[in-house]
C-alpha cells in the first residue's frame, strides 16, 4: 500500500519534471528501494528525523537546553518533562533535541574530511601503483593497526580535549578503510578499455582519476561512509563520555551520560535517554548502510 503510493508519487514527480534529470530519477529509485525494505526504511526515516530535528531544534525543544532550574532537579519523567530533568534541573529531552545538532556537525565534518582524503589516497595509490602505492598502503596499514577509539583518544590527548579536536581526531582515524576500499576498486578497472581509451586521447592522469575513476568508486565509498558513521557516532560519544570530546555544558549525548553517571543508580533517566538516542542513530546508520549496499551494488542480487 505504502509502496503503491510512493510509486504514483514518483510517477507524478517524473511527469512534473518535464526535463527528467536522470541522476534525480536514480536517486528517487534508490530512496524507493530503501523505503521498500523495512530495516533500511527504518534507517532512512530515523536519519531524516535526525536531520529535521537538528534543523528546527528551537521549535521542537519544550525548554531552553541550558536553563538551570535548581528548584526542579533530578525529576523523573513526567508530563511536564518527558525524559525528566538532570542534576541542574535542565530538561533532558530539550538537551537531547539540541544534541542532534552536535551529532550532525560531527557526522558532516567527519564525512567531508574522510571521503575526499580516502578517495584521494586510494585512487591515486591504485592508479599509479609502484612505490607510491606501497608507501601509501603502509601508512594506511599503520593507521588500521589501531582500534579507532584508542587512536582517536591518543590524538585528542595530543591535541587537547574538546569537540573540534575530537572531530579532527575521528577524521584522522576514519579515512584508512575508505582509502583501502577506493584502492581496491581502482585496481579492478585501472586497466579497463575505457580508461586506456581516454589515456590514448591524451587525458592527463588527474583528469582520468577525477572524471573516470572517482565516479566509479563513489557507490561503494558512499556505502562505506554510511556504515562508518555508525562507528563515528559511537566513537564521538565515547570520547565525550571519557571527558575528552565535547565538554559540558554542551548537550553532547556522551558528555550527558558522563555527568549523569554520578547520579545514575537512583536516577536512571539521566543516562538511559541520551544513550538510547546514541543507540538509535548508530543503529539507523548501520541499517541504512546495509540497505544502500543492496540498492547500489548489483553484485549482491
Amino acid at each position, binding site marked *: 500500500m505504502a509502496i503503491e503510493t510512493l510509486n504514483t508519487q514518483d510517477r507524478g514527480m517524473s511527469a512534473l519534471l518535464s526535463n527528467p534529470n536522470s541522476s534525480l530519477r536514480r536517486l528517487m529509485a534508490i530512496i524507493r528501494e530503501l523505503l521498500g525494505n523495512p530495516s533500511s526504511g527504518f534507517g532512512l526515516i530515523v536519519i531524516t528525523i535526525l536531520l529535521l530535528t537538528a534543523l528546527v531544534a528551537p521549535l521542537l525543544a519544550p525548554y531552553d537546553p541550558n536553563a538551570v532550574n535548581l528548584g526542579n532537579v533530578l525529576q523523573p519523567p513526567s508530563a511536564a518533562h518527558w525524559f525528566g530533568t538532570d542534576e541542574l534541573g535542565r530538561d533532558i529531552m530539550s538537551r537531547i533535541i539540541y544534541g542532534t545538532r552536535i551529532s550532525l556537525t560531527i557526522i558532516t565534518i567527519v564525512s567531508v574530511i574522510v571521503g575526499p582524503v580516502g578517495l584521494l589516497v586510494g585512487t591515486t595509490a591504485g592508479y599509479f601503483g609502484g612505490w607510491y602505492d606501497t608507501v601509501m598502503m603502509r601508512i594506511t596499514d599503520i593507521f588500521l593497526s589501531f*582500534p579507532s*577509539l584508542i587512536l582517536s583518544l591518543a590524538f585528542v590527548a595530543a591535541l587537547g580535549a574538546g569537540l573540534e579536536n575530537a572531530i579532527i581526531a575521528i577524521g584522522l582515524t576514519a579515512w584508512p578503510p575508505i582509502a583501502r576500499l577506493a584502492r581496491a576498486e581502482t585496481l579492478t578497472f585501472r586497466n579497463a578499455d575505457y580508461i586506456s581509451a581516454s589515456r590514448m586521447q591524451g587525458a592527463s592522469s588527474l583528469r582520468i582519476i577525477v572524471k573516470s575513476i572517482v565516479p566509479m568508486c563513489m557507490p561503494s565509498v558512499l556505502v562505506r561512509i554510511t556504515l562508518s558513521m555508525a562507528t563515528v557516532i559511537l566513537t564521538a560519544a565515547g570520547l565525550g563520555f571519557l571527558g575528552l570530546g565535547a565538554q559540558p555544558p554542551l548537550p553532547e549525548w556522551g558528555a550527558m551520560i558522563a555527568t549523569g553517571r554520578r547520579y545514575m*543508580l537512583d536516577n536512571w533517566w539521566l543516562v538511559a535517554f541520551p544513550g538510547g538516542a546514541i543507540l538509535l542513530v*548508530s543503529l539507523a546508520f548501520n541499517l541504512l548502510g546495509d540497505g544502500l549496499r543492496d540498492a547500489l551494488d548489483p553484485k549482491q542480487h
Partner: protein
Amino acid sequence: MKSESFTAFGRQAGTIFVTLVGLLVLTFCIGRMMPVDPVRAIIGEEADQATYEMVAERIGANLPIYQQFFRYVSDLLHGDFGTSIRTGQPVINDILHVMPATIELATFAILFGAGLGIPLGILAAVKRNKPIDHVIRFLTLIGHSMPIFWTGMIGLIIFYAVLDLVGGGGRVSDFYIGMVPETTGFLLIDSLIAGDWEVFWDAVNHLLLPASILGYSSMAYITRMTRSFMLDQLNQEYITTARVKGLSKNRTIWHHAFANIRVQLVTIVALAYGSLLEGAVLIETVFSWPGFGQYITNNMLIGDMNAVMTCVLLVGIIFIALNLLSDALYKIFDPRTR
C-alpha cells in the same frame, strides 16, 4: 620452491619492520604534539631557569627533533620506555601491573562472545531467513550499534542497583581488597592459590557483568562473521553432494561445512580478542576496573606523555602481532593457502 618461500619471508619481515618504524614515528609525533612541556612536568612550575636548562639537557628536550626521535628509539631498544610522571615508576612496570586485570576481563568476555557467537552464527546460517535468523541478526545489529559504556551503566542500574544480583564497580568489594597476596595478578587465580573462596566468589560476582557486556559486543562480531562464513560453505556444491549421498543434515553441517570454517573462526576470535581492548577502555571506566583501559584514559586526562606514548605503542604492537598470528594460523592449518 625453497628460495621462493625465503623471499616471501624476507618481504614479510620487511613489511613488519616498516610498519613498526611507522608506528614509532606515529607515537613519537603524538607525544611531541601533546600540550605538555616534558621538562616542566618533571621539575614543576617553580623551578628556576638554570634547573630548567639542566634537566632539558639531560632528557634531550633541547635537541633537534630528529635527534630526539633517534634518542626515543634507542631508549626503547634498550628497554627504557620512560618514567611515568604521575607514579614515578617506569611506565612498563605500571602497565605490567595493570595488565592482568584487563586480561582477566577480556578472557572471560571472549569466552562469552565466542561461546555464544559461534553456535548462534551457525544456527542463523542454517536457518537462513527463518524467524530465528532474523532474531539473531537483530541481536548482533544491536551489539554493533550500542554504546558499550551506556550498556554497562544500564546493566549496573538493573543488575546491581535494582536486582542486587552482581557486585558493583571494582574487581572485588572494598573490604576484600588486599585480602589475598598478589602472586600472578590474576585475582581469580590468586584467590584460588590462597584458598580463599569468599574472595574468589566475590571476584566472580564482580567480573560477571562487565565481562558479559564486553563479550556481547564481540559476540555480535563473531556471530556475523560465523554466519557469513557458514553461508559461503552451505552454498557450495559439495554440501549438496553430501546431502544427495544421504548424509544427515547434522553431519554435513558439522563434519563438512564447519570443518572448513574452523581456521577462519580461530583467526576471527583472535582479532576479536584484540579489539576487546577498545571496549575495555570504556567498560573499565564505567566499572572502575583497575586495568589497562583505565590506565590509558587516566594518563591521557592528566597528560602523562611517556605513559600515553607507551600505551599507544603497545596497542599497535598487540594488533600487528595478532594480525601476523592470524596470517600464520591460516598458513599452518589451511593447506589451501600453501
